């Protein structure tokens, strides 16, 4: 029995060692010629709907840059990994990108937990972290210039939604339901403050927990007070449950939500059917679809001209700004090029919306002001993004119909 045990221990040891030593077996990228970028995206988990398009955008943007001569004469090499929409997994991936692949840029990071858990790792290792997440806390405090948000920050979402409500939608009384989530709470706070300050009635407001089997009690409490409209801020799975309860209860308040809940690449209407979804308004930060940079991005993605891609343009801009800042700093080290993010994004300089053209100008020593696909790529010194707006849609016959675009 003892011999048998030893044999098993040996085989486990061998299996573990070979699994951990696997990266050594591929020496192609150990030579160091391409510039590695770590890309953490939600390919599975509760945000799994968004990752695949962002991955495609990352690949096509890197391929375009590489075809146009690369960065500092070297090619970009992407390491795309699944963050599983999890803070702990994202932190482990950040360690892998930095320590195994020697990446100096960590891009993607869709959700707030992923961004928050990777923030201290990026700062300690002096590596740039670029997130698509909204919670204000990600860029608060001393980030030492290593954390950059490619998204409208959460309080600005609240500003745009409340302004649209006050000026255009005209609801006199509203109820508010928000998911217990770090990016939702600042939106709710700003929205409720604005409503009250402008004489509108907030009949009731509650925060609900994720992954509940039912939201009947919450729905009855808010919708039962019969406000003109109920504003729901959360994610797709909870909103599907909420709307089923609203339909069952026969409530008549209008519903306003976020597009990551009420659209989610068409998954909401698939889940509840067009009858339940009819008339729901939804808001989401989006690119300016009239901007030439966005139109070029659609061509890059081989997408139809009327397609609204919410997150992939951010991924494009993250990689583009990384490339431009590296080229301007003449260094692939984040400690050098992180200081060039504002000069290439905000200018002053020649406005340019194509990353390959922009790289040529930077190589020629021309000052540029890069206009991205997802925004104008302007930043505050603490890493918050300016120049991104929000879209508003309404669901009619199972389709989201575009209403308007507004900036905070």
């Amino acid at each position, binding site marked *: 029995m003892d011999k048998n045990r030893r044999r098993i221990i040996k085989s486990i040891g061998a299996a573990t060692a070979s699994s951990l030593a696997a990266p050594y077996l591929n020496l192609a990228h150990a030579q160091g010629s391409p510039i590695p970028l770590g890309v953490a995206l939600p390919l599975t988990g509760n945000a799994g709907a968004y990752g695949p398009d962002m991955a495609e955008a990352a690949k096509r943007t890197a391929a375009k840059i590489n075809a146009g001569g690369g960065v500092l004469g070297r090619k970009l090499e992407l390491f795309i990994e*699944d963050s599983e929409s999890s803070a702990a997994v994202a932190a482990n991936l950040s*360690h892998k990108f*930095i320590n195994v692949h020697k990446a100096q840029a960590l891009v993607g990071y869709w959700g707030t937990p992923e961004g*928050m858990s990777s923030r201290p790792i990026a700062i300690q290792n002096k590596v740039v972290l670029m997130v698509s997440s909204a919670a204000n806390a990600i860029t608060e405090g001393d980030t030492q210039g290593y954390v950059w948000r490619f998204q409208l920050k959460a309080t600005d979402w609240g500003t745009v939604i409340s302004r649209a409500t006050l000026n255009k939608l005209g609801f006199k009384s509203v109820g508010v339901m928000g998911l217990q989530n770090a990016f939702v709470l600042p939106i709710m706070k700003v929205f409720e403050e604005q409503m009250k300050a402008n004489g509108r009635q907030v009949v009731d407001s509650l925060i609900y927990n994720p992954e509940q089997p039912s939201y009947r009690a919450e729905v009855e409490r808010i919708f039962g007070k019969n406000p003109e409209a109920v504003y729901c801020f959360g994610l797709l799975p909870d909103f599907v449950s909420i709307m089923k309860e609203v339909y069952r209860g026969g409530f008549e308040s209008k519903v306003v939500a976020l597009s990551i809940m009420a659209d989610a690449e068409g998954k909401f209407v698939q889940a509840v059917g067009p009858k339940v979804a009819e008339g729901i308004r939804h808001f989401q930060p989006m690119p300016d679809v009239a901007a030439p940079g966005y139109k070029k991005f659609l061509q890059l993605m081989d997408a139809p001209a009327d397609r609204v891609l919410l997150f992939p343009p951010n991924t494009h801009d993250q990689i583009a700004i990384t490339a431009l800042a590296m080229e301007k700093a003449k260094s692939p080290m984040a400690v050098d090029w992180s200081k060039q993010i504002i000069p290439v994004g905000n200018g002053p300089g020649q406005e340019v919306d194509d990353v390959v053209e922009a790289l040529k100008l930077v190589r020629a020593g021309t000052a540029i002001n890069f206009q991205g696909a997802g925004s104008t790529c302007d930043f505050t010194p603490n890493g918050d993004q300016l120049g991104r707006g929000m879209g508003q849609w309404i669901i009619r016959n199972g389709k989201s119909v575009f209403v308007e675009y507004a900036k905070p």
Partner: protein
Amino acid sequence: MTSYLVLLGILVCFSAILALALNFQWGLGGMVNFGLTGFYALGAYASALFMLKGGANSFFAVVGAMAVVAAVCGLVAFITLRVTEEDYFAIVTLGVGEMLRLVALNEDWLTKGALGLTGVPRPFGDRIAPEYYQYFLLALAVVLLLATLWFLNAVARSPFGRLMRAVREDDVVAATLGKNVLWVRVRIFAIGGGIIGLAGSMHGFYYQYIDPTQFSNIVLAYGFMAVIAGGRGAHGGAIFGAAAVMALLEGSRFLKDLVPALDSDQLAAIRIIIIGVGLIALLIYRPQGFLREYRLKVSP
């Protein structure tokens, strides 16, 4: 790469400490703990809060977290087992675990809710240079793992260990022999709880950021996977089990480097399939786990 392996080593160590705690409670004591995730979260939050809000140093924070989790576990076991049987105890632990997670999520004044606690201090974090810190943390994690293993082995081989096994195998026989079964079980659950508190504290030291999403029920699944794979009741096995689970989870990320044709989203799905297949294969070919439980040998 060395740095990454060091970090993985730390991850394996605190996962193994958690697996040891579960193995002690369930493997040796026969007390199913479906609230493992909640108690683990309690340990992480208690340790972080002792440092961030109470101003304690990391040593006292860890000791405090171990005491808090041990007390809560002991209390849960005492209240539940006085009036119910073992099967209901498992359900109660599930409920308590979920309750603890919801407290972490909703009590903003204490835990900062969904935003989580940032800047969790680390032992000697201000005295050791950042580039060497991970080596120190690995050494600390290894020492703590070995100390836990030694302690649990000592308990398992002591008269109390034999009593634990007796209660696990047949509590009626143990009670008939005059043993206080309730008190034995409360102690088993509390000791295991203390070790869960240690693992939770290490989690906070490693990530330096804790939020409720890190304590989803997948932690429970990995904990049971580690104990089942290692061999229920065998402490050494729980360590191998935790190492194997982590190697499978993290090692499978490197598949893409070995097979470049594999797409990222394909790999995301394939990884989960590989982990599932690995477990099924283990249960078919080695249902008793890697190692077997320590048994007292009698010379022929």
